[in-house]
């Protein structure tokens, strides 16, 4: 079933009786060539690219709950490729390019909207740092533009430019960044994978790995044993729990990140804006709600909810940046469990168990990486070699001293 304008028109004439579920709901088969653990954005994207780019069949995605029930449905939907370090920037730019062609490719409206991101700076030193990052972005082909106060006032006049402590000196803009509909991304990948023969198996919790002479043979699940030639784990948030079943300790702590949305308002904020003097980012959804968030709570957590001190902190940062925010009523707030890695960067790598692969450690930036993460993980699973943009995301980078630490905070996950 292909979506098109004509199809919508034809269905309107038939009273919308011809629409069908977007994917099957199959029972697990006894064995597969590839089993992906985790039916979130990254797992579904991995299965999609395994089937479409690498031509593989006999692929299954195992999901404990329902598809897209984890962080892909809980994030603040920002897509961007404005990184500094050589290990990161080409990867995120690869992701940005995939975002740009994604909807045409999988024939689904993911509402990718390249409305731009502006990272504000508040000191001369911060301007220098942002200029350097902008240069790194341009080297990777991501594009960047340094904005002065006059440029900003024309684009976003409602900010508090002359805050006594944090006057806005300018901003670094990536015009190609923006937002996407997070659930739509999961559904688009799920539908695309299903159309190419991938079995998406829901309510199927992995309870163990069967390993024989150092090679993975399959997974034990709540719906029985499933044999697999290769197993890829993409369960960010629960990476520690799942990989502990394979006897691994990870360079990851699980933390809770909160997000917020206000009542629907008329179009107010043109793109994504981030505060440079605190941790705060805000955008406006197509429905009109202001979507914003800030820091993680800062202690290990598997609860999908946070505590009030961070709510206060986020609200304070928001009020410092754009005082009009105080007039909007908060509709909802929620939390998601994120993999905070030891250097703030992800891992896409093989493990010490043959044919068991791991994808995780996305900190609070996994959503923007969804297409490239899926592509790179599929590449690793299918070819045994890392994708050229994901070569730095190895487990052994910590032991070798090749950490990718954008923040420069060291091995302290709650500071990244």
């Amino acid at each position, binding site marked *: 079933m292909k979506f098109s304008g004509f199809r919508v028109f034809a269905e309107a004439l038939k009273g919308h009786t011809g629409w069908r579920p977007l994917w099957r709901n199959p029972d697990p088969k006894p064995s597969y060539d590839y089993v992906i653990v985790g039916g979130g954005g990254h797992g579904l994207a991995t299965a999609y690219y395994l089937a479409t780019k690498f031509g593989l069949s006999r692929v299954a995605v195992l999901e404990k709950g329902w598809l897209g029930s984890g962080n892909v449905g809980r994030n603040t939907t920002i897509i961007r490729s404005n990184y500094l370090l050589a290990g990161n920037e080409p990867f995120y730019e690869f992701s940005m390019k995939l975002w740009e062609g994604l909807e045409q490719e999988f024939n689904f409206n993911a509402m990718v909207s390249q409305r731009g991101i502006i990272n504000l700076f508040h000191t001369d030193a911060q301007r220098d740092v942002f200029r350097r990052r902008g240069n790194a972005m341009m080297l990777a082909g991501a594009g960047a533009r340094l904005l002065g106060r006059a440029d900003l006032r024309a684009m976003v006049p409602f900010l508090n430019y002359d805050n006594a402590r944090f006057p806005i000196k300018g901003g670094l803009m990536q015009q190609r960044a923006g937002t996407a509909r997070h659930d739509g991304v999961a559904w688009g990948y799920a539908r695309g994978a299903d159309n190419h023969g991938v079995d998406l198996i829901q309510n199927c919790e992995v309870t163990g790995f069967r390993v024989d002479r150092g090679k993975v043979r399959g997974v034990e699940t709540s719906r029985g044993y499933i044999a697999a030639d290769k197993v890829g784990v993409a369960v960010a948030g*629960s990476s*520690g*729990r799942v990989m*502990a079943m394979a006897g691994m*300790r*990870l*360079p*990851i*702590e*699980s933390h809770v990140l909160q997000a917020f949305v206000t009542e629907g308002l008329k179009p107010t904020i043109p793109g994504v804006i981030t505060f440079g003097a605190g941790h705060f980012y805000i955008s406006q959804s197509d429905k009109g709600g202001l979507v914003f968030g800030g820091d993680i709570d*800062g*202690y*290990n*957590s*598997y*609860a999908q909810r946070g*505590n009030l*001190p961070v709510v206060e902190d986020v609200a304070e940062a928001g009020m410092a940046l754009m005082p009009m925010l105080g007039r909007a009523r908060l509709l909802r707030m929620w939390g998601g469990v994120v993999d905070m890695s*030891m250097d703030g960067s992800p891992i896409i790598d093989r493990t010490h168990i043959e044919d068991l692969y791991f994808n995780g450690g996305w900190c609070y930036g996994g959503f923007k990486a969804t297409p490239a993460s899926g592509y790179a993980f599929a590449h690793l699973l299918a070819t045994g070699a890392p994708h050229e943009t994901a070569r730095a995301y190895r487990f052994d980078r*910590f*032991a070798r001293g090749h950490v990718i630490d954008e923040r420069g905070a060291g*091995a*302290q*996950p*709650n500071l990244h």
Partner: protein
Amino acid sequence: MLIPHPSLGPRDAEEFTYLGDSRLLDRPDPNAPDAESAFCDYVFLRDNPAGVHRELWFHEQGDRSWLVVTRDTVTHQVLGAEMARDVALARKGSGA
């Protein structure tokens, strides 16, 4: 979250900063032959359990003591707190 400080009573978690797993008290022996890999594990790897977790909190806005807090990472329930100094000395005394 309220943290039951052994000498100050219940204190708001906001007064504290968080370091992580209390296994960080067990610094490896730098003179051991496997010190390099032991320190790599010590610095970078974590158990990261879902459930009861013993972790280091620093009472930065209070008496500046280090505590070992026992807390459930699934419910955020704080189950107890001890002075980290006492925990470390007890481990040293037992030869562990």
